[in-house]
């Protein structure tokens, strides 16, 4: 089966995504071989669903986005692998958050990854996964200048051997 990439996208949005080619300056291949066996690897998850920990973290800044519709909060959150579904909140103005709040695993499958670790399919999960809010300014300036580097430093600190990224 070949996925229809535009099945759930409003028709008027399609030209915003289709046929635009590479991001400027990001044409060349990038490749890091996955060196270890999965059963000896520590994996990280990264969701762009605007997830954060209600009790201890600030929300993504939706007020500023309301005032400046081309802007999206470029910061990131470290999500403890031990966070329970009821600890999670969602700040994202471009999706309905009902299903995400009912079951955050649909964006950040921390329980499923733990289960695979218990079964020995993967070596383990990082202690802290990563969340961003995926609606960003089109040039990704702050992500490029700041956020990406911070996330890489976090992933290195967590000894991540690989990352599974999931856009919302």
């Amino acid at each position, binding site marked *: *089966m070949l996925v229809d*990439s535009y099945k759930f996208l409003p028709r008027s949005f399609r030209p915003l995504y289709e046929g635009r080619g590479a991001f400027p300056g*990001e044409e060349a291949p990038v490749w890091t071989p996955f060196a270890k066996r999965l059963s000896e690897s520590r994996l990280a998850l990264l969701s762009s669903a605007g997830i954060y920990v209600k009790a201890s973290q600030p929300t993504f800044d939706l007020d500023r986005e309301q005032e400046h*519709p081309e802007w999206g909060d470029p910061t990131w959150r470290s999500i403890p692998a031990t966070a329970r579904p009821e600890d999670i909140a969602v700040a994202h103005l471009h*999706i309905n958050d009902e299903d995400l709040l009912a079951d955050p695993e649909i*964006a950040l499958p921390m329980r499923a990854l733990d289960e695979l670790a218990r079964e020995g399919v993967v070596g383990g999960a990082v202690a802290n996964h990563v969340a961003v809010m995926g609606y960003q300014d089109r040039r990704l300036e702050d*992500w490029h200048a700041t956020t990406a580097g911070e996330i890489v430093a976090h992933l290195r600190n967590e000894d991540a051997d690989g990352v599974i990224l*999931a856009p919302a």
Partner: protein
Amino acid sequence: MPVLARWIEAAGIPTVVVTMMPAVAEERRAPRIVGVEFPFGHAFGMPHDRAMQRRTLELALRVLAGAETFRTRIDLDVEWPVPVREAYRAWQPKVPSPIVRKLLETRSRGST
């Protein structure tokens, strides 16, 4: 998200992107791609459907660890169990996002 994956990959950490728009991830040159025909906000599947979520995650792990070449794309052969029109409505926010509101206002001004 594909561009963020490229920056992480370039820093030496292998990545896979699980996405409902795999054709766009290919255009943006993400290193490894898993396509899912799921509504936005549901990269790993239906809420509380552990089997579907696990199947998606397992494919992502296989592609992450097993892909041999740049821009490998494998699509998940799972159909969304909700009728398309219903699912299309359900994923969208109850209130249009600020940018959509702005575009709609611009369009309505243009047509008057």
